[in-house]
């Protein structure tokens, strides 16, 4: 039972990491109608710059800020130089162009930082464990990730639901032409929005760096899951991103742990371990298929 609680917490933490990525991507996808495969590259830029700053003695918080700022600036530069030309093109062109950007960024980081993965340690004050479930010490850094995710999501929700910019964003998600006609500076809004989404990806990148490998191509794994999250949640919806991220985080974690056990009830262990692991990795895609079968526009729909 305690183990189950701990696994729930792990699922929550994984969901929160996904959420930081997904909330930025869903805003960009939903409002700008732009498929940005290079969102994972911004995650990578955040992690690399954060890790480098910390390695040069900036301290954790300054490194965090550096990573976020680098990702935001890279994102805005990307929007000004490349994305602008793509809004009116169809999705296939956007996929091709942003896929090209993935290759560009992956090669770029290997030129700057080399092909070897870069080191980033857990900050000292978060390197211990907290034993709030008896007998299951939980890494303090993972708790910090959960807290950060919840706080950021809260702020984001406030921003989108309670402020004027948020109102424009929501209006843009519903009808892009109309909000332009009402005199809102769409191109500025797009640049800011893109930079904001990039900053969130950068934050996720720096927060992921202490427990994962900082290396070229690190953004791709998380990108695929992020797309699954926003498709399940409903494109353009923050609430959808929250629901989708938690659903995917919990399903993936609990599936990985319990499906091989379940399979052993019917199959010999050697077969069960392999097929269980395969089935667990398919589980989120099965979930996505089921959700889309019943709600083709995702759990929370934004577009009319």
């Amino acid at each position, binding site marked *: 039972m305690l*183990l189950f609680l701990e696994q729930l917490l792990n699922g929550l933490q994984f969901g929160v990491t996904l959420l930081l990525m997904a909330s930025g991507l869903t805003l960009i996808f939903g409002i700008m109608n732009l498929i940005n495969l290079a969102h994972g590259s911004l995650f990578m830029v955040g992690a690399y710059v954060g890790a480098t700053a910390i390695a040069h003695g900036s301290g954790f918080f300054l490194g965090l800020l550096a990573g976020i700022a680098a990702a935001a600036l890279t994102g805005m530069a990307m929007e000004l130089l490349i994305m602008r030309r793509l809004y009116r093109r169809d999705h296939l062109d956007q996929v091709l162009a942003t896929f090209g950007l993935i290759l560009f960024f992956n090669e770029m980081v290997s030129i700057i930082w080399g092909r070897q993965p870069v080191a980033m340690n857990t900050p000292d004050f978060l390197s211990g464990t907290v034993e709030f479930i008896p007998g299951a010490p939980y890494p303090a850094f993972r708790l910090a990730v959960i807290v950060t995710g919840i706080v950021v999501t809260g702020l984001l929700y406030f921003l989108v639901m309670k402020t004027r910019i948020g109102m424009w964003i929501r209006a843009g998600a519903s009808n892009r032409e109309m909000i332009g006609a009402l005199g809102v500076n769409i191109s500025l809004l797009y640049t800011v929005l893109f930079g904001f989404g990039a900053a969130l990806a950068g934050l996720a990148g720096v927060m992921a760096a202490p*427990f994962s490998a900082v290396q070229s191509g690190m953004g791709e794994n998380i990108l695929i899951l992020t797309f699954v999250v926003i498709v399940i949640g409903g494109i353009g919806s923050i609430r959808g991103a929250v629901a989708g991220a938690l659903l995917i985080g919990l399903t993936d974690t609990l599936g990985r742990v319990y499906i091989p056990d379940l399979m052993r009830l019917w199959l010999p262990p050697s077969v069960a371990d392999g097929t269980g692991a395969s089935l667990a990795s398919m589980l989120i895609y099965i979930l996505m298929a089921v959700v889309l079968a019943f709600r083709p526009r995702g759990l929370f729909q934004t577009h009319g």
Partner: protein
Amino acid sequence: MSLKGKKAALLGAAAVMMGSSIATFAAQAAEPVKIGMITTLSTGAGYLGDDMRKGFELAIAEQDGKLGGSDINLIVEDDGLKPESARQIATRMIESEHVDLMTGIIFSNVAMAVVPKVVRDGMIYISTNAGPSLLAGAKCDPNYFNAAYQNDNIHEAMGQYVQDQGFKKVYLLAPNYPAGKDALAGFKRYYKGDIVDEVYTKLGQTDYAAEIASLRAAKPDAVFFFYPGGMGINFIKQYAQAGLKDDIPLFGPAFSADEHLVDAVGEAAVGMKNTSHWSHDMNNDASKKFVADYVAKYGAKPSLYSVQGYDAANLIGSAIAAVGGDMSKKDDFRAALKKADFTSVRGNFKFGNNNHPIQDFYVREVVADPDGGFTNKLVGKVFSNHVDAYASECKM
């Protein structure tokens, strides 16, 4: 001087000139040996192929651009860890570049897409890393040589070591792909105690929180894991963060603790034992020279992948020298390769009946490097002249 005398002198000069031009012609005829290298340079695993290539190129540079006295034309292509693109590159190298021999593949799944076909068609292939069991056993081939290891070897050595250390309950983890299953099979071939659980995770998985929580609940007395590259970095960091590092010791193959990986993991990896066929602090002259030259040329520490590239290049050099650079003497070239008449930085090295190495295996421990960063320290030897488990199935 008479007219006749003049004529004779002219003829003589002409003969000398012709003679020298024949000589230059002969020198031109000794064309450089073309080596096609397909390897993984991009993706998160790009540093594996990069290190291997650096080791290979170092051997060429040490001999002034030659191997075994012949000029070398090395053609390097990135397979991007994709079997299908490796296959296309191989076809191009053979049909339009007309390479004399091939080498370089890092991953077994990529190797399986390329090697069986090219060696069947008569191309000589020298592996610098991948050693899938299939190519060591029933499907061994006179054109296929492995200068690295058979896949199971390094895991077998760790199985033996964990057994010798008296651990009774071991927890196993590996990615869910053929080399992951080979790894655990290799470990279990020599470890005879209880296996608490055997967990296969998705290839390329980044978060191991769930697996680590289950592991802690299972209370093993040791953990063996095979996670190369980025997966290894993730796993070791998260394992230490969960506070398990000092309670349950980690054991793995050298792939889970190569020089770059331990540098990226840092403090969390210290104390981890891993098995390898080489360690940079090995006490032999060839190895010392290799490490010094490598650091001087690249300003970075060599990894086991660098060693495999370096040894493969020197092995090829020994065979080129044996045929005097004439790559049309294929049978002689193969026979010379089989002799393995070169000085390996690993010390003992010879080929078994299946053209796979018979070599020694060692245990290393991750320590903080006095020069900064982290590194591996030699602890002891596990196997001497170890033969792989598939050699007897090879009818060669």
